[in-house]
């Protein structure tokens, strides 16, 4: 389930990076009303980002899938609440922090999306795919907040990790 959600997040992020740069406000509206714009993926589906990351405890998995369902129908705050419950079970799991960042992103809270993605990265040592997707999320969030210099720096990080991976 985690894998799926995380992969979903990655695919979403890819879509985000590609569409957001051109027309960010439109995507944002779409994300709120129709939060799974996964189909028009111009790139082949990414490999799972969580290779090597320890599995989530089953208790947390259930909560993550509940969060996923809530977020899919636009109940992002409910999703946050479920993810926080999951975090209390597996607080050091970087994917949970990334999921939280993605939901905050969907809520339009780009500052928190960035901070939570950074937090995910601080726990993601050795998982360069996960880190890369976090940097992508950071880059988009920064751009949407008008921090183009910061966004460029984040993109450099993402690219660097892409080359490594």
């Amino acid at each position, binding site marked *: 389930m985690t894998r799926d959600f995380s992969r979903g997040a990655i695919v979403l992020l890819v879509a985000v990076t590609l569409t957001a740069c051109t027309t960010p406000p439109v995507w944002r509206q779409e994300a709120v009303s129709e939060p799974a714009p996964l189909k028009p993926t111009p790139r082949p589906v990414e490999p799972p980002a969580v290779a090597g990351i320890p599995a989530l405890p089953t208790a947390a998995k259930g909560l993550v899938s509940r969060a996923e369902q809530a977020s899919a129908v636009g109940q992002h705050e409910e999703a946050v609440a479920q993810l926080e419950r999951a975090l209390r079970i597996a607080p*050091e799991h970087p994917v949970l922090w990334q999921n939280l960042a993605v939901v905050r992103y969907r809520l339009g809270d780009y500052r928190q999306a960035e901070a939570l993605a950074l937090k995910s990265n601080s726990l993601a040592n050795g998982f360069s795919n996960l880190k890369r997707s976090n940097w992508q999320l950071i880059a988009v969030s920064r751009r949407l907040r008008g921090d183009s210099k910061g966004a460029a720096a984040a993109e450099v990080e993402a690219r660097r990790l892409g080359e490594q991976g």
Partner: protein
Amino acid sequence: MTRRSRSSRRSRSKPSGRWIRWWILFALALWIPAALLYVLYLDWRVTSQFEGKRWALPARVYARPLELYEGLRLSPQHLEAELRLLGYQRHADIPAPGSYERLGDIFRLRARPFVFPEGEEPTRIIEIRVGGNQITRLRGASGEPLDLARLDPVLIGSIYPAHREDRVLVRLEDVPPLLIKALIELEDRRFHEHHGVSLIGIGRALLSNLQAGRVVQGGSTITQQLVKNFYLTGDRTIWRKANEAVMAVLLDYHYSKDEILEAYLNEIYLGQDGNRSIHGFGMASQFYFGRPLQELQPHQLALLTALVKGASYYDPRRHPERAMERRNLVLKTLGERKVLPMDKVHALLAQGLDVTARGRSGDSPYPAFMDLVKEHLHRDYRPEDLSSEGLRVFTTLAPDVQESAEQALVRGLKRWSNANVQGAAVILNVDDASVLAVVSGREPKFPGFNRALYARRPIGSLIKPAVYLAALEHPDQYGLGTLVEDEPISLTDANGSTWIPKNYDAQLHGSVPLWQALANSYNLPTVRLGMTVGLRNVANVAQRLGLQPPKQVYPSFLLGAVPYSPLEVAQAYQTLASGGFRSPLRSVRSVMTRDGEVLKRYPLMVERVVEPGPAFLINYGLQRVVLEGTAKSASSRLGSDLGLAGKTGTTDDSRDSWFAGFSGNTLGVVWIGRDDNGKTGLTGATGALPVWTDLFSGLDLRPLSLAPPDGVEQLWVERSTGLLSAEYCSGSMPLPYVSGYAPEPAAGCVDQRNVFERASNWLRGFMR
């Protein structure tokens, strides 16, 4: 009025039969409409108040619910303590929600249903096996594995309006049928037949009162009793009795028997707890038995029925014999009237009263934490909403941690004979910045001055991590191995006054590596370091961590001559413990209406305020404090594999004693001192630290295993010089450094090192 006064004047001046007749007619003409008007007024009162009646329901404040899952760190004692707090009854058959059974390390329980902001938790059977202080197996009713379950949360307090009426609303369909039958049998047998008042009832009461020569029985119907409780004051006058009867008839005319009964069940007065009055059977059940009405046994329901007659006269705690007598009368009556079979009645008569020792007090058992919750809620809610809307407040309090903290502080304070020595403690969950426990003094169960929140005292050496972090944020200039001078220093300010700081042990230690100066809490190197890095930088770091610096920062800031509360200190150390991510502390997770609608959530907010590299280095330093520095007694008692990190703090002349420290999941700040700021003779290491250690020994801790972030590497450094060395060089030790900022190589060992490295490179090439 003028006409009336004129006519009366005339009648006085000229008395005659004709005028008297006129007068009577006139009075009747005036009074009949007046009486009608009065009845209409009563009717308006009855209907408008009954329909508009919204009982002022205090906000209910809950602890965090205990989430159960395999792998949860939880000792069997903590689990059982939680069940006791929740009022679960131990019973081998676990017959009803709210009961449990324990066989060694296996618990079976029937959980209560509960509506949480994140969804409903059904009632169900849960089997929990605890081993090695964690849940090793979680199963459902028929042995199927359960991923996750949570218990209902402990009610930790209520927020009352001024007059403190307390009630838990019940719906008629949720009330045990036996209670309703008992009430009707005992209080108003003809409830379903009469029209609000019962002439037969009044006649019967009159008769027995005449026989006894005093009032022994009231002829009040349930409807009249409701009217009395609802609309009228308690005085026993004919006028009030008449009003009551009229209003009862009106009430019966307008509303169904069920509506009247439900209102009665929620309104009737059933007890007193100080200045808090207990209204309705929902609250009474909690007050006398510590559990919901639905879970009560027949003999307990009979006792509640008995209390209707006179809650203080039959108070089961103050007058158990009277209460027992009356309860048994209720049970026998139910037997005689075939509501209960006689053999069952006999069994029930043998039961004790079963009331809890003390009423679940309206005052919170955790007043210090409640202060924090109220402070939070008053930012977003009006006081009248909090005390009347029946809001449900879900907090972060962990009762097991709170109890451990209270006991540890009280135990600790007892060790010092001086009764003036006070203390406070704040415990946090590191992962989500939630406050688990607050202890505000040596009498934690009583409300009073909240030292944890409001006692701002100089924090002494607790400030030092900010100084060292400010240095470590410049890896080009400082590493953990960098030597700092432990030599006298004197500083003169603009006014010409001189400040000469001293080490606590009044010794000088020469040149010491930075980590060691922190671990041993040397003052002189700290002041030198802080002055070189710059006061402005140090203040900036303190602010980022969450400590508001004073408007004017003096060099004494470097040694913590600034006052902060334990809670503020906890905020700053939380930032350190979570690796440089600051999160505003939370005591409330969410607020729900009484209908289960989520009003507001308070999510975790995160901000990165320290880069990962320096954050790692300072935490490494704080681990050395506990491993071998001023707080090493903690690691020798709790074990070094927990990787605990922290800092001691002592202020001038041993007035305030502080310790702030954390494991992987839990952070605690303890302050010991005196309200009058007198000397305690305690240092951080002799006062607060033992309390902290005692406290943490009772918690379910996760080790703090710091993983070096990207861009941090381990180097071997010569201890005496702080220069780059190698593992095989004598006097060298491993220390983490920000990559690219290794210190200069040490002279002696470097050549050797090159030789070795060349050799190993050659070897590597050879192997390839």
